[in-house]
């Protein structure tokens, strides 16, 4: 058993390894790993990390791919008190460079990246160290409130912010989520969400904490393949973002209805879901728990609602996820406002970050121990919370948060005098929001098509604006900030 009292997650995995050693914990293609094997491989990987000289508090960058060895490294770092900085393997190079510059990692683990900025880079499939089977080691002492993971989110200024999550935070979020959804050891879940994002990584933790089985699936692109996994493993639950639901509807119609009886739960989150889709899901899955979360990387799964149980109130984002989570609505001075009055949604609880990696990012993010979400909403007399808008300006493209500043910088680099981007509803009704660009007209004869073509070299496809408009000038405040609200009018 792991001697890791700082990590409830590791203690739970360890308990499952003792109580149900032969139970399958993880599946990747033809490979299956039992809980006993999972525990052994986490320990082997931890010994290999120790052999590299890593010690508590050191940071390692994990360029996440959906593979078993990522999972071993992720939990091995927790065992040692080494801090995981989880990034998308497809991150743009400048984002990765920035993250590395900020966290100054001791090593980078990846199956696809080369060494970056002189940081030693290792493959996830690195062979075991020579002393992998040596006598028992004394694992380092780590505190439950030490940082376990740093997840980089996109700030409104376009500069990524590192969110520090402690061992207590990530276990708290998993425990709250399992308590609400009801995931238990009998469940078999399919994971097609990326592990580099808070949602997908959270599902991994929830399933392993519950002692259930997680089947790793590439992504949702190939629905035929995803459905065959649901069939083959008799999957009882999965997570998806609203854009994936639109995708499933568009490409497969109602074919997913044939899994209605076997699916015990579906977790939905990361963006708003239209009311008609909530009703359609309820119709297709009459006996499935349809659990939608509201949360941020800084406060994962802060609130939940279940559609069937709240059929008369589908507009609400829900209530706090557990008795250990609180939510409130506050004005610009941090004072509580009355029920029904709009203000900023603030949350506190076991899963809420205590700090950003750069302490200066904490400015304006907290009222005491209350985290300010930047989202606007209100509370009713029954304690249900409603989201009425987003104070922050990120564009939520199918669950991918896009900073308008990133797009604007790219457009300006093409010689456009000034520009501004805002979120507009996806005209195809699939992605939720898409970027719209306003460009300042000058004597330049460049066309929108020209700009789009050049942006393909600078931005990933989902960050390229879908709508375009010429304007005489970009509205700005006296201090030079873009007045995006004026552009939305």
């Amino acid at each position, binding site marked *: 058993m792991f001697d890791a009292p700082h990590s409830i997650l590791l203690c739970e995995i360890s308990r499952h390894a003792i109580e149900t050693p032969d139970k399958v914990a993880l599946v990747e293609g033809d490979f299956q790993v039992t809980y006993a094997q999972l525990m052994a491989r986490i320990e082997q990987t931890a010994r290999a990390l120790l052999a590299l000289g890593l010690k508590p508090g050191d940071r390692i960058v994990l360029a996440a791919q959906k593979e078993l060895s990522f999972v071993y490294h992720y939990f091995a770092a927790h065992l040692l008190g080494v801090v995981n900085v989880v990034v998308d*393997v*497809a991150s743009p190079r400048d984002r990765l460079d920035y993250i590395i510059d900020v966290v100054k990692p001791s090593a980078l683990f990846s199956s696809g990246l080369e060494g970056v900025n002189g940081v030693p880079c290792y493959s996830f499939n690195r062979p075991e160290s020579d002393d992998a089977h040596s006598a028992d080691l004394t694992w380092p002492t780590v505190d439950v409130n030490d940082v376990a993971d740093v997840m980089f989110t996109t700030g409104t200024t376009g500069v990524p912010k590192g969110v520090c999550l402690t061992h207590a935070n990530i276990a708290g979020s998993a425990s709250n989520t399992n308590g609400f959804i009801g995931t238990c050891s009998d469940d078999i879940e399919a994971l097609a969400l990326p592990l580099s994002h808070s949602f997908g990584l959270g599902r991994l933790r929830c399933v392993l904490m519950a002692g259930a089985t997680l089947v790793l699936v*590439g*992504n*949702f*692109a*190939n*629905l*035929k*393949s995803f459905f065959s996994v649901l069939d083959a493993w008799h999957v009882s639950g999965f997570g998806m973002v609203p*854009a*994936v639901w639109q*995708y499933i509807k*568009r*490409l*497969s*119609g109602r*074919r997913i209805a044939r899994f209605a009886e076997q699916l015990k739960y579906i977790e939905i989150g990361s963006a708003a879901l239209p009311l008609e889709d909530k009703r359609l899901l309820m119709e297709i899955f009459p006996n499935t728990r349809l659990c939608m979360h509201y949360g941020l990387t800084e406060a994962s799964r802060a609130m939940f609602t279940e559609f069937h149980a709240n059929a008369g109130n589908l507009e609400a984002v829900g209530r706090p996820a557990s008795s250990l989570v609180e939510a409130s609505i506050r004005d610009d001075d941090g004072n509580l406002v009355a029920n029904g009055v709009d203000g900023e949604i603030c949350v506190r609880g076991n899963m809420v970050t205590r700090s950003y990696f750069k302490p200066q990012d904490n400015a304006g993010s907290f009222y005491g121990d209350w985290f300010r979400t930047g989202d606007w909403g209100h509370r009713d007399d029954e304690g249900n919370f409603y989201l009425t808008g987003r104070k922050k300006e990120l564009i939520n*493209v*199918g669950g991918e948060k896009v900073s308008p500043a990133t797009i604007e910088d790219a457009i300006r680099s093409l010689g456009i005098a000034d520009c501004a981007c805002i979120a507009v509803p996806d005209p*195809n009704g*699939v*992605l939720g929001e898409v970027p719209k660009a306003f460009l300042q007209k000058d004597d330049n004869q460049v066309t929108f098509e020209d700009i789009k073509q050049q942006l*393909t070299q600078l931005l*990933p*496809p*989902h960050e390229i604006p879908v709508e375009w408009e010429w304007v005489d000038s970009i509205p700005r405040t006296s201090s030079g900030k873009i007045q995006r609200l004026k552009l939305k009018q």
Partner: protein
Amino acid sequence: MDSKVKEIIARVLNVAFDRITDDLSSGDIPEWDSVGNLAIISTIEQELDLEFPLEDLFDLTSVRSIVEEVEKLTNV
């Protein structure tokens, strides 16, 4: 038509043309995710002036199946 469809797929996914083999399927490479798949479908429809029947979309999971579907719809 084979190379035209492959050219569109490579351009939409922003990957090298020679990676777009007949057997490549959606989900095989990180670039070909659900957003990429939708972009492929809409770009082919737009540039080749055709419309995939809704009931066929579910089966368009590989480069080969997309090429065959386009050839069927354009009577090549």
